[in-house]
């Protein structure tokens, strides 16, 4: 059957994750007739809003907003569409048992912990943010190809080099040195307090299959430092209504730009005709014709599942299969009926995140356990209680505790998660209770999402935060597959726009934005036709 005439969309987007929505808004604004097809009953992908316990709201895997590119916030006027912050500069509190903590943002507390570290930490943060921002402009550009014969590519590479040089000679040298380093070495060189070292190392490895001693973990840290909120670089925020509300703002922006969004519409496969993507087929058999198809789904599912290996050459298939995308970060949501006393006395309590972590070697040991597919004895966590800043997320007087749990293996060496999930949930609650006493008795509902749960619930293959490891061999011009980092896939008219493409995951909106620019240029020049 040939799709034709006025039924035909310009663009069909598979999946309404935040990148799919950003792409839809950009494409709509460019005057292209765009439809977004989402299998779930609401938009947002892995940041989708739902009640994990009656009256208690969660935003999927997301809990902190920081990386959303300010250029996108401005261009899509997300402020007008409802983006507001309940907290926009979270302090980092490292828990040290029995309700005690060290605030990394409190100069006096830091001076008591270690005068040397207190002096160095603000400088360290400034340096890291400076390096992160030297890399940041490339976040909103398609990676150049390594084709030196092409002047545009050569110019793009020269621009990249020049931007690094603009840092100044000293900083450029330091950035080129540390970018391939491991977090363990970096924090050991810089700090003496075990708490400070472990806190920074945890931020470096969170979301990735890496221990503090894994090379490339410093890159992952810089990537996570590249965010900004209202011009405040490196800031961490909690949006009003949770991250799910940001998904709502993106949805509004997309609809406002003329895009059609259909939820409950599961794409079964990509329609191929004459070796070109010409639309999608839903699981109920409905065909939706479009000039091009853009997939927000993870690379493996998009290419090996929805598209199908019969349309790809074996080398490309082999590369795609080896894209490392097994998640190691779980998500815990707790519904609390009352705030325990240990949390009442915290200053600026709504403006903080808690790091629950063993020391540096303890984090490495937890990684080792995960490496061999066992559950670590002590799991590092990043915890927020968003209801302290935004009470609307729970019934009155009640609270939500949300935690990213690092080093939960995707698969277990023995048994499976159905047998082990409840035990891990209790282990985590006990571990939080030891740090914030009283939590355990206040839990009236709990949800633990292991990586396979995340995979199933959000249709996120591998259950990985970033749809695939953020490591030097899987970023930039190598992401997701070398030679195909410019969002165009080998089948004409088929594009990827998810976190599995440059620059990666987190709520950045960048892959969606970049893919849309490429698609718009191609459609305007009729390139893939």
């Amino acid at each position, binding site marked *: 059957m040939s799709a034709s005439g006025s039924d035909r969309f310009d663009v069909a987007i598979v999946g309404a994750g935040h990148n799919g929505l950003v792409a839809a808004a950009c494409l709509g604004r460019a005057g292209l007739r765009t439809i977004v097809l989402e299998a779930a009953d609401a938009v947002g992908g892995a940041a989708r809003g739902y009640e994990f316990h009656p009256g208690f709201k969660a935003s999927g895997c997301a809990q902190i907003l920081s990386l959303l590119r300010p250029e996108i916030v401005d261009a899509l006027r997300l402020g007008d569409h409802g983006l507001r912050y309940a907290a926009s500069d979270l302090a980092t509190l490292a828990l040290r048992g029995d309700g005690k903590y060290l605030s990394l943002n409190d100069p006096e507390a830091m001076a008591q912990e270690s005068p040397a570290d207190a002096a160095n930490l603000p400088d360290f943060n400034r340096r890291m943010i400076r390096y992160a921002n030297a890399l940041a402009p490339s976040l909103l550009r398609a990676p150049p190809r390594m084709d030196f014969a092409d002047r545009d590519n050569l110019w793009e590479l020269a621009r990249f080099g020049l931007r690094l040089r603009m840092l100044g000679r000293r900083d*450029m040298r330091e950035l080129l040195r540390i970018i*391939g380093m491991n977090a363990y070495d970096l924090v050991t060189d810089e700090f003496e307090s075990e708490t400070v070292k472990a806190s920074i190392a945890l931020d470096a490895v969170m979301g990735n299959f890496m221990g503090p001693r894994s090379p490339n973990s410093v890159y992952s840290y810089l990537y996570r430092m590249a965010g900004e909120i209202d011009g405040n670089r490196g800031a961490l925020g909690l949006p009003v209504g949770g991250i799910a509300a940001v998904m709502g703002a993106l949805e509004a922006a997309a609809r406002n730009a003329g895009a059609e969004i259909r939820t409950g519409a599961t794409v079964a496969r990509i329609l191929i005709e004459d070796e070109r993507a010409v639309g999608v087929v839903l699981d109920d058999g409905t065909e939706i014709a479009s000039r091009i198809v853009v997939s927000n789904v993870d690379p493996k599912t998009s290419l090996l599942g929805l598209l199908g290996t019969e349309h790809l050459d074996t080398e490309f298939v082999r590369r795609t299969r080896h894209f490392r995308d097994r998640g190691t970060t779980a998500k815990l949501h707790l519904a609390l009926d009352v705030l325990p006393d240990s949390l009442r006395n915290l200053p600026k309590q709504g403006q903080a995140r808690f790091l629950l972590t063993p020391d540096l070697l303890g984090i490495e040991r937890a990684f*080792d356990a995960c490496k061999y597919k066992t559950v670590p004895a002590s799991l590092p966590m990043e915890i927020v209680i968003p209801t302290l800043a935004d009470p609307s997320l729970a019934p009155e007087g009640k609270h939500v505790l949300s935690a990213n749990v690092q080093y939960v293996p995707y698969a277990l060496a023995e048994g499976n998660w159905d047998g082990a999930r409840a035990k891990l949930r209790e282990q985590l609650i006990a571990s939080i209770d030891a740090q914030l006493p009283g939590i355990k008795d206040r839990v009236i509902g709990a949800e633990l999402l292991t990586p396979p749960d995340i995979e199933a619930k959000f249709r996120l293959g591998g259950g990985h935060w970033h749809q695939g490891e953020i*490591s030097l*061999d899987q970023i930039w011009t190598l992401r997701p597959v*070398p*030679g195909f980092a410019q969002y165009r896939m080998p089948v004409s008219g088929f594009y990827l726009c998810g976190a599995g493409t440059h620059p990666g995951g987190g709520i950045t909106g960048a892959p969606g934005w970049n893919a849309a620019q490429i698609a718009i240029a191609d459609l305007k020049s009729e390139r893939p036709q």
Partner: protein
Amino acid sequence: MKRYDAIVVGAGHNGLVAAAYMARAGLEVLVLERRHLIGGAAVSEELFPGFTYSTCSYVCSLLRPEIMRGLDLPRHGLQVIPYEGSLNVLTDGDFLASYSNHDRMRRELMRHSRRDAEAYDRYALEILRQCKFIRPMLLQTPPDPTSLRPKDLMDLVKFAKPFSELGEKRLYETMRFWTMSIGDFLDEYFETDVIKGHLAGSSIIGTALGPYSPGTAYVLLHHYMGEVDGSIGAWGYARGGMGSISNALASAAQETGRCEIRCNAEVTDIIVKNGRVKGVALADGSEFLAETVVSNLDFRRTITKLKWTEALDDELVRKGENFKIRGSSGKLNIALDGLPNFKGVAVKNNPAISGDIHYSPSLAYIERAYDDWKYGHWSKKPYLDIVIPSLMDPTMAPEGKHFMSVFVQYVPPTLHDGPWTPEKRDAFGETVISLIEDMAPGFRNLILHKQVRSPWEIENEVGLTEGNIFQGELTLDQLLFNRPVPGLAQYRGPKKGFYMCGSSMHPGGGVMGAPGYNAVREILKDLHRGAPS
């Protein structure tokens, strides 16, 4: 007092290469060595009557052919005997043999996995491509990517040229190869544990990383980029032990009549006046003057252990202290009464036994061995690289007897419960010997004499900080223009007239000679004396 044009601190192989090329360029050179013998980690010692021990480094491949030819080392007595196979012995009677003969290798791989045998040719081709690409860089000075001086920009363009000539697709492969782990790389090609374990060994030898740590694929390359007699990636034994290389280099240097080598002469001070080096002082107080001083010591030792009469700036000292030079290897040198019988392995006419004999059953096995190291234990189940050079070189042991070198990965520089002691060292030795006994029953009864060396002994005898065999980790933060630290990668030290020529410099460790040669190129450039020849 006699004045010298240049003083080399330390008679390691790179110091000797540097001395030889400087003397050939007409400089009066003095080499000062702390120990009683020259060679650093490339030495032969008779530690048991009639047996020659290659005490530290034990095989040869990386020595640059340009240096071999340029200094005419064969004429000075160096003969490299290539070996034609290797083994990965398991304790259950099975093994993987590898042969330089392609058909024989293929048959052996097929015995384990038809699919892996198919993949091996693709794998070998890819590794060869990466080697060919990197080899021309070894004898180049890394450019400074931060400099905007026209000369440096030209150097950068020149250095980048091979990258652009690779072509787009190959360039991606190279970018991945330099940043990924050997585990991920091998998993893309092979399915069989014993094959992956066998091939991964070279990626972790001397390196404080596990096979699944990113960056280890590059370390593999570092071991494959050598050659013996034009055969890329081949390894061999220096006849008479590794000391023969040092002796040949010393002979080449002394033949010029302008190079003096003194042993038992420990340099403690670098004499600096008005920001310029003037000479060195020894532990016994004597002084030697020269306008050029070249350190063969590792970077950390050069910066933090030598006394500088004009202080170095604090930031540089901090960088010296933070230089990543981790001890991760140990060594056993053993005199044997006869040839051990490795389970299931034929001894007669088997070239596989003449080369490296690994104990490396799988990637996971090596990864666990690494995990022990991270927490200050020697690997309870270590990776072993055993060679028996006396099989190919009869000068190493009396007839019918054998010298065996056992390289052990991973061994920490200090242990979780404190520093090394003789008791702990012996316990470590026992761990290794009982493992070899499992591979070759009856082995223990063949031992006539053994020497066990932890990183502590390597540091204290040879002078390599933490016993690191490469004079510094070969990770991205310490390669090319980052080696040893950004801004000092061009062989020039922190004071005028001071140079560094050890393996802490590009392109790094192994008995290669490249850092020594590259340092002389920069020295002669500064002295306006043309190129080394």
